[in-house]
Each structure stands twice: as structure tokens, then as C-alpha cells.
């Protein structure tokens, strides 16, 4: 079963990625030749036939073909096209040609023919028209040329994308709720000694991976949905989302993201062997209780042998369950008596786990730590024993002020961070929702603001974060603004 699923994921993604590269190369070759030769030239005609042929294969199978640009990434029918040195030049060329006309998205349906591709690509290699919107002008020229089966769209700005992503949020919310419910069922089954189905687990992990690949901002927003009573389950799902999102930023393949997600989702499965009285105890644990709790990584490894529905035990997930409390200096637990290889997946889960745990309200932690402080501590204090590279990538992903941080701005307004800045040099200027004005009045409709946007009058950013604060102090439910 596992082999089949793995192969399916690998095959579909790899096939689409390869086809995407082929289409990019064909578009590049055609546009180059259109710039050099007249339309009737054989080189141009051959290149156009190639575009038609390789898009036809995808259209016949998938029913549509979409090429979407997002920063330095290109997605082909929602699968990220892996670029290497061999095809990077063609990608840059095509991206530049699209950017001139402010196009970020091309979608073709099955009716498209070689005539339409010819007209479309000929228009692409022309100069953009002077005026308000190059995209609108291009759209009009497409209409005049009778191109009906190719649609273009803008490269969505982050603020726009966030405002328009209600549908994505709803999908993320559904995935999140389903994942929590499955984790709850599994943990309860393990506690009762019942068998648990790997098939449902697989579906959940794949759902999270797909959702993160589709819209990681919406999924990361979900991690602010914290339920005090369901902490163990929501925590597992949060760690899974954070780990998969980080894996995606690090360039993992879909199969690797699945393995990482599976381990992250069940990193705490061993806790189902810990008595609830110990797990939910408010206050310090005594020596014996601590001994039991600190055994949960070992329990986790053994319990994952019972995960049915896989052809073989999920070895990497088992290692993640075992190693997620270990530190790079081997000060964590389980204690190791010798230096050992410490898996990269486990290092990722260790960081995500610590971040989510420190920023959540738990039975023995009534006041969670502010997310930015937690990140700073992880980054600056080597005694915490986190992998420096992973922490750096995590900070880059979350921003200096992670999603869900409540901030006071220099204008006196209160805001909640909803997404990190898309510009890596502006990590300290995230996207926020203004919750209340300078006089402390709650806004009926919280406004979305990009803190890196300059004030047209002064040329400098209009708002700056002065400090972060505790949401409870202002009776703010962070997830109302983020998730």
C-alpha cells in the first residue's frame, strides 16, 4: 500500500514537473525564434508545433493547463516545477517576458489550438503598451486577436492574495479540523489498546502536504487555532503543518514532505502511554512523573510499529518520534551514551515542536511566551541545542514576528501579524491586521496592512512595530484575525 501511494505521489508530481519543464523550454524556444525570424520561418513553425504537442498531452489528460509564477517558483498545474541549471535560463526568459505584461498566470483549456498559441506568443514578445495597466492592455490585444481559450491573470500581490483567499482558508480549516479529529481517534485508540488505521492517517498527512503546497500562509494561520482542552491533538497537527511548511521552504520533494509530515504528526504518539493524570497535571512534575513523561519518545518508536496500512514500518517517522527531544549537543532526552547520527527530519520536528509548545497555553503554562521571543531564544541561545541552520530557515519562514504575534505600532494601533513579509530583507515588516486604532477603539472591520509599504508622502514605511504584547491583555483571540 505504502509503495503504491508513494509511487503514485512520486509519479504524478514528477510527471507534471517534467512536463512543466518541457512546456517552459518550448515556450522559451518559440519566443526566442519569434524574436529572430518571421512567423513563416521553419524554425518558428517547428517550435510552435512543439508547444502545441507538449501542451496537448497535458490538456488531454488533465483537462486544463496552468502555468503560475510565484516569486522564484513556477507551478505547473499546481505542482512546483523543479528548476536546475539546464532549464533555469528558459525560466528566467519566460518570466521576464510575462513580467513585462504583468502576467503571473496562464491558463489554457482543451479547445486551444496552434493558431491561438501563435497569436498569444507573438503578442508576448512585443513591447508592453504605455498606460495604466499592462495586463489589461494585453487582455484587450488578446481579445482583438481572437484568443479565447487562453486566459491570463496577474501575479497576485500578497495583500491581495490574502484578502482573496477566503476559499483557501475554508479549505485549510476543513483540513485542519479533519486532521485534529483523526489524531484524536488514533491517540484514543492507542490509549485503549485498539488497532489504528494507517490509511486514514495517510490521507490526513497527504491532505496537509497538499494544502501547504497549495497555500502555506492559510495553513500556517491555522496553527494559531489553539484549543486548551485538545492541546495534545492540536499540537500534533500544528507541528505537522510547521514541519511540512519548513520542509517545503527547504525544497523537499512531495514524498519527503509526506515522510516528514507523518513523523511530525505522530511525534508525540508515545504520550498515549503516559497516564492522563500526569499529562494534564497543572504544576511541576515530581521525579517519578518526569521519568514517565520523558519515556514518551521511546514509547512512540515502539508504538509506530503497530501502524497498519503500510507495507513496512515508517522508519523515518519512528526516528522522529524517538529523537524529537534530543538536542544537537545531546543534552535532551532520551539520554544517549554515545554521539549518534541525529536525523535532519528530527531536527526540523524538534524546532517546530518547541516553537508550538512554547507559544501555546498548556496545563502547566498558563501564559504562553510571545512567538517573537521564542524565536529569538531559539536563535540566540545555543544552550537550547537546536540546529542553527534549521532555526534560521524557520525564522525566514515565520518572519521575525511570526503569524499570530500581537504588536503595538508606532501609530498607537494594535495589530495582529497575519503573514511574514514576502521580501526576505523586510522580515521585520510583516503583513498585519489592524485590530484597534490609536485611541484603543476596536475596528469593526480589521484592515490589512503591509508594513513594508512606504508612505507616498515621505517615502518611508508608514507604520513600524514598536513592541509585541500579550493578546490576553487586550482580550484578543488571535485566531479570529488569522485563521
Amino acid at each position, binding site marked *: 500500500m*505504502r509503495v503504491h501511494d508513494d509511487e503514485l505521489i512520486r509519479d504524478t508530481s514528477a510527471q507534471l514537473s517534467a512536463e512543466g519543464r518541457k512546456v517552459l523550454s518550448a515556450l522559451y524556444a518559440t519566443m526566442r525564434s519569434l524574436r529572430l525570424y518571421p512567423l513563416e520561418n521553419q524554425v518558428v513553425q517547428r517550435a510552435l508545433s512543439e508547444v502545441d504537442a507538449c501542451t496537448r498531452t497535458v490538456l488531454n489528460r488533465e483537462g486544463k493547463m496552468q502555468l503560475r509564477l510565484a516569486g522564484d517558483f513556477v507551478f505547473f498545474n499546481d505542482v512546483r516545477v523543479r528548476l536546475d541549471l539546464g532549464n533555469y535560463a528558459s525560466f528566467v526568459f519566460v518570466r521576464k517576458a510575462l513580467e513585462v505584461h504583468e502576467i503571473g498566470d496562464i491558463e489554457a483549456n482543451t479547445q486551444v489550438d496552434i493558431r491561438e498559441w501563435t497569436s498569444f506568443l507573438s503578442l508576448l514578445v512585443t513591447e508592453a503598451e504605455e498606460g495604466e495597466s499592462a495586463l489589461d492592455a494585453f487582455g484587450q490585444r488578446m481579445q482583438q486577436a481572437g484568443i479565447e481559450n487562453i486566459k491570463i491573470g496577474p501575479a497576485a500581490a500578497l495583500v491581495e492574495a490574502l484578502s482573496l483567499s477566503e476559499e483557501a482558508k475554508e479549505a485549510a480549516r476543513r483540513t485542519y479540523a479533519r486532521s485534529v479529529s483523526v489524531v484524536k481517534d488514533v491517540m484514543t485508540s492507542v490509549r485503549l489498546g485498539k488497532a489504528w488505521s494507517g490509511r486514514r492517517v495517510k490521507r490526513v498527512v497527504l491532505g496537509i502536504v497538499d494544502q501547504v503546497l497549495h497555500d502555506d500562509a492559510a495553513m500556517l494561520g491555522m496553527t494559531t487555532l489553539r484549543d486548551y482542552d485538545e492541546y495534545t491533538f492540536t499540537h500534533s497537527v500544528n507541528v505537522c503543518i510547521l514541519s511540512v511548511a519548513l520542509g517545503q521552504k527547504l525544497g523537499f520533494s512531495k514524498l519527503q514532505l509526506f515522510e516528514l509530515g507523518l513523523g511530525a504528526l505522530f511525534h508525540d504518539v508515545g504520550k498515549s502511554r503516559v497516564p492522563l493524570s500526569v499529562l494534564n497535571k497543572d504544576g511541576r512534575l515530581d521525579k517519578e512523573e518526569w521519568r514517565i513523561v520523558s519515556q514518551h*519518545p*521511546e*514509547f512512540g*518508536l*515502539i508504538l509506530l510499529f503497530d501502524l497498519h496500512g503500510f*507495507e*513496512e*514500518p515508517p*522508519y523515518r517517522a*519512528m*526516528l522522529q518520534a*524517538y*529523537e524529537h527531544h534530543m538536542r544537537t549537543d545531546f543534552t535532551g532526552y*532520551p539520554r*544517549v*551514551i*554515545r554521539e*549518534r*547520527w*541525529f*536525523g535532519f527530519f528530527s531536527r526540523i520536528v524538534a524546532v517546530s515542536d518547541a516553537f508550538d509548545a512554547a507559544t501555546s497555553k498548556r496545563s502547566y503554562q498558563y501564559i504562553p511566551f510571545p512567538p517573537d521571543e521564542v524565536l529569538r531564544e531559539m536563535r540566540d541561545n545555543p544552550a537550547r541545542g537546536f540546529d542553527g541552520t534549521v532555526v534560521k530557515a524557520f525564522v525566514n519562514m515565520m518572519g521575525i514576528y511570526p503569524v499570530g504575534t500581537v504588536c503595538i505600532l508606532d501609530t498607537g494601533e494594535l495589530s495582529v501579524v497575519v503573514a511574514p513579509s514576502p521580501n526576505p530583507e523586510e522580515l521585520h515588516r510583516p503583513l498585519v491586521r489592524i485590530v484597534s486604532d490609536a485611541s484603543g477603539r476596536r475596528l469593526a472591520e480589521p484592515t490589512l496592512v503591509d508594513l513594508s509599504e512606504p508612505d507616498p508622502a515621505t517615502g518611508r514605511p508608514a507604520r513600524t512595530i514598536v513592541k509585541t504584547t500579550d493578546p490576553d491583555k487586550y482580550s484578543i483571540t488571535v485566531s479570529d484575525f488569522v485563521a
Partner: protein
Amino acid sequence: MGKELQKRDLTEQLAFFEAYAEAAGPKGIKLLSRLLNGRRFLWMKHPSPVRACAARALGIIGGKDADMELNVAEMDRDPMVLSAVHKARTPEEEKKAEMPDAGS
């Protein structure tokens, strides 16, 4: 242990076996001894890396039963397994002493 684990590199395999030994304790001896000294289809032994990892894991568990399995493996002619059995029997302090200094 299946093919998936055998596909991983030796360090990852060893990490898994060590983790298993620490987590399972003496209860893991049965499985590990089967991997170290047992026979598979057509009377073949398990692949050398798996046997070597199993030997190291038995060394971690220690005790009379684990030692008996290591004794059996000591008769083996596979150099990888023999080396692993030797390492499994070497106390940690000696292993550290055998390691060259970082500066040398």
C-alpha cells in the same frame, strides 16, 4: 526489517537500530538476534549492513542473552559483522580512547 530501511544509508540504519535497542531494551533481543544470526529465504543470511547494525544494537542492550547472540556471530566470516561485534563489545570509554584527537 524491510527493504525500505535497507535503502537508507548505513548511518541512518544504525541510528534506527540504536534507537530501537534503547527503546525496546531486552524485549528487542529476539528480533535483533533473528536479524543477526537468523536465516531467510533459501537459507541466506540477512545483508551485512543489517547484521552489523543488529550486532551494534545488541551491544547497546547488553546482558547475558545479547552476549550469547554476539558469541554466535563471532564465528562469522563476514568482516563487517565481525567488526560490528567487536565494537558492540568495546566499552564506551575505550571507544572514545580509540578515537584520534581532533587536532591530530
